[in-house]
């Protein structure tokens, strides 16, 4: 396959998995502007390194690049004040802020809807508040549905570490939600 065709392939792959990329970046960086920029960086970098894509599991390959770009961005921002500031702001505003970022579903039962939105907001806040190492594996496993092996490769860590972070992360979330009297 020539380079041009490979670049097209990679470009299409990235576009197909754009929501996955944005979702990961948004959860890692905590705000829309940086998430968008990181995904854009990743797109450019993916096209540049299209020759390294060996085919096969494209999603994990592409998300690895996205993740690197997110961390590059965090580093670049030094202490990461921008991110911290916005995350803190969200934490301070609490559920109101979290609800704002969550799309509303069709409302037929406004009250029920509000309760569901509140519950989603709580989970959202808990996940956002988790240490990055747990938040990252939870997003990759539960939302993006990657396997242990894919996550281990993406993060360059042993599968055992993926398992322990995932377990710990789930535990923390369940505890936090339970503590809020949230468990059914």
């Amino acid at each position, binding site marked *: 396959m020539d380079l*041009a*065709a490979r*670049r*097209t392939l990679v*470009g*299409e*792959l*990235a*576009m*197909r998995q*754009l*929501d996955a*990329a*944005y*979702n990961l970046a*948004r*959860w890692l960086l905590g705000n*829309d502007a940086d*998430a*968008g920029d990181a*995904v*854009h960086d990743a*797109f*450019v970098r993916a*096209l540049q390194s299209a020759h390294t894509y*060996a*085919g*096969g*599991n*494209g*999603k*994990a390959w592409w998300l690895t690049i996205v993740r690197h770009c997110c961390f590059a961005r965090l580093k670049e921002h030094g202490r990461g004040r921008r991110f911290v500031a916005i995350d803190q702001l969200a934490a301070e505003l609490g559920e109101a802020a979290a609800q704002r*970022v*969550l*799309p509303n*579903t069709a409302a037929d039962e406004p009250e029920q809807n509000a309760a569901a939105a509140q*519950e*989603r907001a709580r*989970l*959202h806040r808990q*996940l956002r508040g988790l240490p990055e190492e747990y938040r990252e594996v*939870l997003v990759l*496993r*539960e*939302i993006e*549905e*990657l*396997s*242990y*092996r*894919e996550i281990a490769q993406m993060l360059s860590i042993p599968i055992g570490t993926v*398992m322990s972070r*995932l*377990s710990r992360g*789930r535990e923390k*979330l*369940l505890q936090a*939600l339970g503590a809020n009297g949230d*468990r*059914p």
Partner: protein
Amino acid sequence: MNCESSRRLLPLYFDGELDPADSRAFEAHLDGCAACRQALAELEALRARLRDPAMRYAAPAALRGRLAAAMPAARPRARAWAALAASWLAAALLGAGAAGLWHDRQQGLRAQAGLTRDLFASHWRALAAASPVDVVSSDRHTVKPWFAGKVAESPPVRDFAAQGFPLAGGRIDYVGSARVPVLVYRHGGHLIDVFVLAAPPAGLPRQARMQGYGLRVLALDHAAAAVVSDMDEAELDRFARLLAQGGEPPPSR
């Protein structure tokens, strides 16, 4: 299996990372252990909430437009955009299919999900094993006789080396409780498992996707085949077509 060791396996079972034998042992324990069932239910409830579409940020349209404009124009053709749109549509349909599968599973079609999971788990276990094949050979005249006596019927064995899918060997594996022959092919760095099934099992989806691995189910000579690999969709379809068109194999002995 006691509760302590079962707690260790619980997340693996939940994440579909246990092999069929361990899964069954775990399920046997689960039947008699309310505490483990409760723990599993908690994980499932948490997952359902995390997989709520509201938890997943969608890429803003502006970003999508920005990147689409930066897409490399490999072969400028009038229909390039139409093709791209079609591929997105196909991806969306596939996604919907996968979501549907997940939904089905949630609806309690556990048998079907179990069979699909068995196929994927078997492939993953083979990948994790020291060797994914029990008989290593690129020669179908070696692979076919090897199966004789190990399974009821030796599967048709064809080599697609010329088309870029050389035969790597074969092994015997379990799908459900049945011993089935598995033909193993390679494509670049990818391993392809072809499970040769006596008949298309009821309820098995024609295609499925799990954690980056794809499944295709197709008719094969007098049998059916389930193909599992981590190749991308297009390659998987190409291989499935080759296999389906393979037709009557030339006499292999």
